[in-house]
């Protein structure tokens, strides 16, 4: 198996002495090539630090990080990856197109498809506008185009949809899945949005306090219908083994086509349904379990 990113006993401490902060502590993780790999964890868990170490922006205090099986910071490996770390910022006097020309030139990319990538991230209309007037969402889109302009084998995206409107979030989710499925790009994605991770990732790693707490295969998890209804007992009775109590609500392990029949059955039994929504219950629970423990 070949790896997109490997962390081997990786440690990073910011500052020294008693005031030093351990961002990563003897952290080890193998991210295989292919698909979309999610990196989850609360603020300060070490996600951005891991990415900055992999890209050679900062140096480890201990251990090793490898990108495409080359040491971190190796220009040969770096030229095969794309990255967007936190909300990107750009030289305000350059247009979106000029920004991509400059960055692709710096990478030594031969004939980059600048217009094509601007269109794919949805800012073709703003191609010749200076980036100083860009909203956060537009900057995120341009950052994505900058990460992808060299047609990388691996792309590291740190919160790629932060600051975007709902329709933008949906577009970018679709783009991420398309990159993995159609273009064969390995996507390493950090996000706080569990729904996003649930929908686009194949596997996910949980980080807490600078340590890896778990790695899960999301194909093993399934979404559930969370029903808030009274009486709860009637709902559990109808669902049988497929229903579990979740506080005042019930989690129904059913497929989407079964939902209308279930709602009808509940109504027929005189159950008052206040709310019914699909949730990635397992990922939410797993997140809380792995990041709080």
């Amino acid at each position, binding site marked *: 198996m070949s790896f997109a990113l490997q962390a081997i006993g990786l440690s990073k401490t*910011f500052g020294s002495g008693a005031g030093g902060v351990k961002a990563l502590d003897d952290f080890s993780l193998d991210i295989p090539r292919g698909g979309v790999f999610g990196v989850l964890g609360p603020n300060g868990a070490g996600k951005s630090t891991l990415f*900055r170490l992999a*890209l*050679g*922006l*900062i*140096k480890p205090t201990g251990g090793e990080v490898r990108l495409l099986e080359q040491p971190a910071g190796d*220009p040969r490996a*770096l*030229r095969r*990856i794309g*990255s967007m*770390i936190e909300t*990107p*910022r*750009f*030289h*305000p*006097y*350059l247009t979106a197109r*000029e920004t991509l*020309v*400059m*960055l692709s*030139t*710096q*990478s*030594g990319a031969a004939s980059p498809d600048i217009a094509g990538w601007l269109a794919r991230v949805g800012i073709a209309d703003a191609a010749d506008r200076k980036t100083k007037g860009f909203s956060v969402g537009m900057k995120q889109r341009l*950052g994505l185009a*900058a990460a992808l302009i*060299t047609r990388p084998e691996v792309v590291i995206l740190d919160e790629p949809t932060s600051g975007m409107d709902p329709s933008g979030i949906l577009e970018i989710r679709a783009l991420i899945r398309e990159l993995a499925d159609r273009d064969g790009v390995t996507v390493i994605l950090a996000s706080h949005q569990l729904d996003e991770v649930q929908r686009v990732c194949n596997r996910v790693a949980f980080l807490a306090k600078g340590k890896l707490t778990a790695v899960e295969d999301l194909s093993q998890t399934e979404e559930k219908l969370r029903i808030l209804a009274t009486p709860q007992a009637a709902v559990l009775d109808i669902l049988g083994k497929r229903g579990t109590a979740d506080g005042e609500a019930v989690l129904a392990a059913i497929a989407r086509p079964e939902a209308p029949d279930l709602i009808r059955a509940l109504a027929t039994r005189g159950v008052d349904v206040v709310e019914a929504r699909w949730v990635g219950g397992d990922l939410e629970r797993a997140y809380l379990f792995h990041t709080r423990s």
Partner: protein
Amino acid sequence: MLLDALKAEQFRLWRDRGAVIFGFAVPGVGVLLLGLIATLFMKLVAKVPIPGHVNLGSDLVGALSGTGSPITQIFFLIGAAAIFGTDYRWETWRLQTPRNSRLNLMLAKFAAYGAATALALVGMGIGGVLSGLARAVIEAEPMDAINFAAFAPAFLRAFAAGWLELMVAGSVAALLAVLTRTNVAAIIVTLLLAFTQAIIMGIARPDPVNPPWDALLTFPGLSAQVLRGGPVGIGGVTAHGAEQATVFLLLWLAVFAGLTIFLFQRQELTRE
């Protein structure tokens, strides 16, 4: 890969209109405007002609000598800060360092600054020639023929001295930009150093014809003056030690540029 970094840096710099205009175009325009104002003042206010005939060769070399002034250097420091400090200011190193080696990225910045400075010196020379022509027209003054045998070496020395002196100042600004990650510190501290050097040179008063080597080594400004021909060059005497002065200017440039690259290669870009 160095060529890629250089092409990208040149592309970026020429689109940073503020840096190009205030850093590298103003000195040439300033030479022209100051020459015009001086000529008009002497003719219309003082009503005294400027002594001597118009000599475009001397005007050109004289314009290039303006690089020794800390006032002129302010503009080049603005340009240097815009080149070396821009990626800290806009937090754009994180976009660039994964694309090329840090050594190449910083060498590209030095090359871009060197090229822009050379062009700015050409601009200053053109400004000097144009102000000489304007004086000839305003004062109806005949022009001396240029003695190319004397002009060519004086021009080359003035150009080399100006360029090296500005490269040393720019490399100090580069080091400060990387060290402090702010443009303001890069400009202000380098400028303070230039003024301090001028004051100490004024107090120490090293022999202008045969300056001691330790004075040449200590003061890049003195080395540039000697390479130019020295303040006594105007009187027909040329200062000795141009070769030594050139070596010392190159040494200062290598030290500051080397320190800048050394520091940048080890710098943590947690947040630019």
